[in-house]
């Protein structure tokens, strides 16, 4: 490792809640990458035929995976809403400090509501997966 300061300089910033929206976007992106592996596993089990698939569904509906689906649904909701915020920023809009503070709250509230709705549909409406 080079003997000099390397970007990103994580320790030099004063903590502010808008900072959380940024790191959460990255964290949820990584969780969704894990979700990509689950999707590939699901499809590859399908390729293996009915018996292997039934075994895989057994694994995929275990408690640890149910916990993962909660994380995946939140990550999907958050990364979607926060990603749209980034795309709006890319057009040069909403970059003032007061605006980005408001949109940080909006991202948090909308993504939590969306997550709750998705969780309701996933777990309350249907017991499966």
């Amino acid at each position: 490792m080079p003997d000099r300061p390397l970007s990103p300089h994580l320790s030099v910033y004063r903590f502010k809640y808008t900072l959380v929206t940024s790191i959460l976007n990255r964290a949820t992106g990584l969780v969704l990458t894990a979700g990509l592996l689950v999707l590939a596993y699901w499809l590859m089990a399908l390729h293996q035929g009915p018996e292997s698939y039934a075994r895989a569904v057994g694994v995929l509906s275990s408690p640890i995976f149910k916990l993962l689906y909660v994380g995946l649904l939140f990550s999907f909701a958050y990364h979607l809403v926060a990603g749209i915020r980034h795309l709006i920023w890319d057009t040069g809009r909403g970059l003032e400090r007061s605006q980005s503070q408001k949109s940080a709250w909006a991202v948090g509230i909308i993504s939590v509501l969306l997550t709750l709705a998705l969780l309701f549909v996933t777990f309350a409406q249907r017991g499966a997966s």
Partner: protein
Amino acid sequence: MSLQSPLGRVLGYGSAKEGVHHWWVQRITAVALIPLTIWFVVSVLALPSFEYATVARWVATGWTPLLLVLLIAVMTWHSRLGVQVVIEDYVHSGAKTLSLILSNFAHTLVAAAAIFVVLRFAFGGAA
């Protein structure tokens, strides 16, 4: 007026006009993923069950295979770009190159395997 030195011009140094390529592709794939991921989440949650026959029929029917192939291709591409930036930010020295290569291999493998399964069911290759 060019600010390039004569030597630089002769050696062909300078911008390759690709400085924004990573940034731009990340944005384009992000825009494409908005409708694709919403479609995917809604479709999967609307499945009556996750039994083999149900899922096998869903994967093979209508426009589902086309949308699945698009989703898998664009999502792995977007994921690859995102993971690349994370590695470049936090992993240094020799482990960085190795991590980047492993990430590229893993993403390519996931995309190829998932698309292969979708196409096999779509074209009726599944017994």
